[in-house]
Each structure stands twice: as structure tokens, then as C-alpha cells.
């Protein structure tokens, strides 16, 4: 399968999963954020789907950058620049080292952390992305990486939010899964399913 066909399949799977879980993501965000994460993510990935042919007609690094830029321009919340940075950075890294997927993912997650001025352990998407990047770097099988993602997202339930809107709630943020961690796990699951 070509890069382009794999990317098409992965993005279609992500868009479908985000659409199917939009209400759940918004409900999670209503509990500890501003209640727009599902709608924002759906708007972004719907825009990616609508423009998919044009976005992925270039080689993989440029295609990933184009997808990230589309998310930046359409999501409408902080998740736009954050997920946008993930895709844009993946593209930039793969342009420099085309075969180093694990290194590219690790550095792209660092770029997301820099964009959000955050780190792991603050009840954010990073709590999923870092363990996933670690598992991918350790060459774990796809099914295991998906399990790592879902376990890490679920574990944010017991964490006190110290970054993002949920941090305004202090102790009251405990007991709710972080919506960004959940959407990250959904994306990991969709990509893994499409590629394996």
C-alpha cells in the first residue's frame, strides 16, 4: 500500500471516529471545560475530509503539514493549534528523516507540549500522546499501543488538572476523564486500525 493510500485510510478512520464520538467528547468537555471539544474536533476533521484529495496529493511530509494547517484554520479552539502542531511537526520531522517514524512522533509530541506550554501529568492530551510515543518507539504491536492509549486516557480521571480550562476547577477536575486525552486515544485507535 502506498503512503498516500495509508494516509487516506487513516484520516478517514479518524474523521469517522471523531464524528461518532463528538457528543461524548463534548459531554466530557462540558464537565471540566467549555463544552466545545467534540464540535470543534468534528469541524476540523470534517474540513480535512472535505478537502482530503487536495491535502494528501503531495508526498507524506507535505501532506501531514497540510492536514495540520487545515486543523489549525478550522477547529476554533485550543485543540486546533495543538493537534495542528502534532501533524505539522510530524510532517517536518519526516521531511528531515523520512524513515524515523518513532523519532518523528516523539519530537512532534514535544512540539505539542511546547505549543501548550504543558507537560505530562497535567491532565491533558499529552498524558496519552507521550505513553503512545514511548510504546511506538519501543516497537510494541499496534493492539498494545491502542490499549496503552485507552488506559492512559482513562487514568486522567484521577488526575488534578493543572493546565487548560479544567485547571480552573482545581480539585473538582478530579473524577472526570480529560476530553483531549480521550480524543487523542480515539485518534490513536483509528490510525492503528487503519494501518494494521
Amino acid at each position, binding site marked *: 500500500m502506498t503512503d498516500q493510500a495509508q494516509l487516506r485510510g487513516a484520516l478517514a478512520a479518524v474523521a469517522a471516529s471523531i464524528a461518532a464520538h463528538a457528543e461524548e467528547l463534548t459531554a466530557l468537555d462540558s464537565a471540566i471545560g*467549555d463544552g*466545545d471539544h467534540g*464540535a*470543534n474536533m468534528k*469541524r476540523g476533521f470534517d474540513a480535512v475530509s472535505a478537502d482530503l484529495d487536495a491535502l494528501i496529493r503531495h508526498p507524506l511530509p507535505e501532506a501531514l503539514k497540510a492536514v495540520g494547517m487545515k486543523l*489549525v*484554520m*478550522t*477547529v*476554533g*479552539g*485550543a*485543540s*486546533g*493549534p*495543538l493537534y*495542528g*502542531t502534532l501533524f505539522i511537526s510530524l510532517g517536518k520531522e519526516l521531511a528531515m528523516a523520512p524513515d524515523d517514524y518513532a523519532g518523528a512522533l516523539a519530537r512532534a509530541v514535544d512540539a505539542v507540549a511546547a*505549543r*501548550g506550554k504543558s507537560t505530562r501529568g497535567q491532565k491533558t492530551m499529552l498524558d496519552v500522546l507521550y505513553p503512545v510515543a514511548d510504546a511506538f518507539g519501543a516497537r510494541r504491536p499496534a493492539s498494545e499501543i491502542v490499549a496503552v492509549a485507552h488506559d492512559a486516557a482513562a487514568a486522567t480521571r484521577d488526575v488534578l488538572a493543572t493546565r*487548560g*480550562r479544567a485547571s480552573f476547577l482545581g480539585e473538582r477536575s478530579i473524577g472526570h476523564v480529560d476530553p483531549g486525552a480521550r480524543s487523542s486515544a480515539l485518534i490513536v485507535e483509528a490510525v492503528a486500525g487503519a494501518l494494521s
Partner: protein
Amino acid sequence: MSNVGIVIVSHSPLVAEGAADMVRQMVGDEVSLAWCGGNPDGGLGTSVPAIMEAIDRAWSDKGVAILVDLGGAETNSEMAIEMLPPDRAAKVVVCNAPVIEGAVMAATEASSGASLAKVRATAEELSPA
């Protein structure tokens, strides 16, 4: 415009426009001023392309100071700055200040002909250290 420009970014277009009205009335027309608010669908949120357009409208060669309300407004503003041509990006800052008070204070400072660094510092005096 020879003074630093001001951009107001809120999740709500009503808040952004209202803050801009206050700046106009309190500071006058000596400062170029633009605002934006709302996500790309018109709901509450912020939009990177709308922020880039607002920076363009408020442009001054002396620089542009952006005042934001909450989380996504800041992240989206930082993204918008990075997407400007590098010579312009170097002259735009996001102020860590409350949006309405910060906009009025920044515009007041800007109207005196102050530098971008001074405008930002004045707005940021409003934030707890």
C-alpha cells in the same frame, strides 16, 4: 499609523466588539485597533484566520499587541503570529493581561507613541506576578 496597533481576541464577538468600543471611547483614534471573536462557524471560540486578518487590519510598523481572553484565544493567537511572514511575526506579541482592562491600558500607552515592549509591559502590570 505611527503608534503600536492593538488587537482584541475574545471567544465572544460581542465581548471583543464591546472592548473595542471602550478603547475607542477612552483612548480615541490615535491607535489602530481591530477585534475578532467566535469560531469559524460563528459560535463561541476563536479562529486563527480571523486573528490573522485582525492583525492585518491593526497593522503598524511599530508592532501589534494582542489582548486575549481565555486559553484557546491565546494558543490560537500564538499560532496566528507564527503563520505571519517572519518580519511581521517579530513585531506581534500576545499580552498576559485581562482582555478589557489590558486593551484600554495598552491602547493608552500606545497612543503616547510608546514602543511595543512598553505597551506590553504596561498591559501586563495588570496581571498578578
